[in-house]
């Protein structure tokens, strides 16, 4: 037992317990697949459709896991309605993530326009910085420390990928290799957490207290 336990800390622990089900890890892992699968689909579907086909798939993943959380996880772990402080914080997180995405999109377009003039390392470094900032802010706002570690590892991926591409001849700036490994790692981590949670909390047949 911790020596000092404040109400704020209690709220944070309860919040963390309600979200530590591995779903976010699996979702991030699936999101990283966006840097891997379209590259292979490119030969069959072309540049535009290979990326576009991933969008409905990604939406399906989000809807599917949301339903799984509601139907399977929530009856085992229980339901919590956060207080005003947490609700405000989560709202702010959504805004920040939206802004980060907009900046990433702008930088992406900028990199695409300057593609021929700028070195691969510069583009991958920009990408890394955005990823690091995005994941760190999300980790802080969501009170989810694992996101800091993910942020560091994922932000290293574009630079490592560029190195592999330039020095060892990996294809597509090393993205399939680096992001593929990271994606698999995150999905496996999420699955392990999910299975542990399902074992720890067996299904409740009914709501017992009258």
């Amino acid at each position, binding site marked *: 037992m911790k020596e000092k336990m404040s109400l704020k800390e209690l709220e944070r622990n*309860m919040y963390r317990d309600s979200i530590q089900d591995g779903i976010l890890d699996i979702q991030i892992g699936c999101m990283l697949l966006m840097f891997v699968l379209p590259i292979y689909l490119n030969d069959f579907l072309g540049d535009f459709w290979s990326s576009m086909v991933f969008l409905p798939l990604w939406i399906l993943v989000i809807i599917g896991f949301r339903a799984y959380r509601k139907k399977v996880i929530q009856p085992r772990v229980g339901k919590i309605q956060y207080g005003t402080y947490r609700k405000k914080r989560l709202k702010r997180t959504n805004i920040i993530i939206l802004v980060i995405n907009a900046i990433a999109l702008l930088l992406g377009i900028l990199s695409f326009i300057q593609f021929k003039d700028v070195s691969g390392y510069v583009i991958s470094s920009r990408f890394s910085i955005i990823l690091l900032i995005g994941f760190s802010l999300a980790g802080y706002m969501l009170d989810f420390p694992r996101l800091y570690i993910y942020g560091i590892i994922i932000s290293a991926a574009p630079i490592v990928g560029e190195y592999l591409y330039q020095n060892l001849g990996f294809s597509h700036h090393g993205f399939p290799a680096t992001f593929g490994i990271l994606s698999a790692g995150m999905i496996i981590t999420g699955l392990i957490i999910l299975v542990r949670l399902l074992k720890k909390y067996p299904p409740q047949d009914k709501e017992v207290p009258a």
Partner: protein
Amino acid sequence: MSKKKTVENPLGAIDQIIHAPARLQILMMLYVVESLDYVFLKNQTGLSWGNLATHLGKLENAGYITVIKGYQGKKPQSQIELTTSGRKAFKSYKNTLQQILDDLPE
């Protein structure tokens, strides 16, 4: 006579409904959120269904919590909330206990 007793025993001023460790734990949790269901409370407190029902019953009878009946599909899923008087009572309990502990000599 009873006034003198209260002065001698400062703990007499403490709300005994809240003071029980399990009920205090339940109220602390409800204080920091909007509402919780039975399953979440049971998992967090580690109490048995029977104990949880007893403590929640006492808190409900005192008017400190309210149970909002609801359903998730066909399964009942009630949410438990702290009432305004429950919030007030918890704050007052916190202040009283703090006062007593602060007045203790080193």
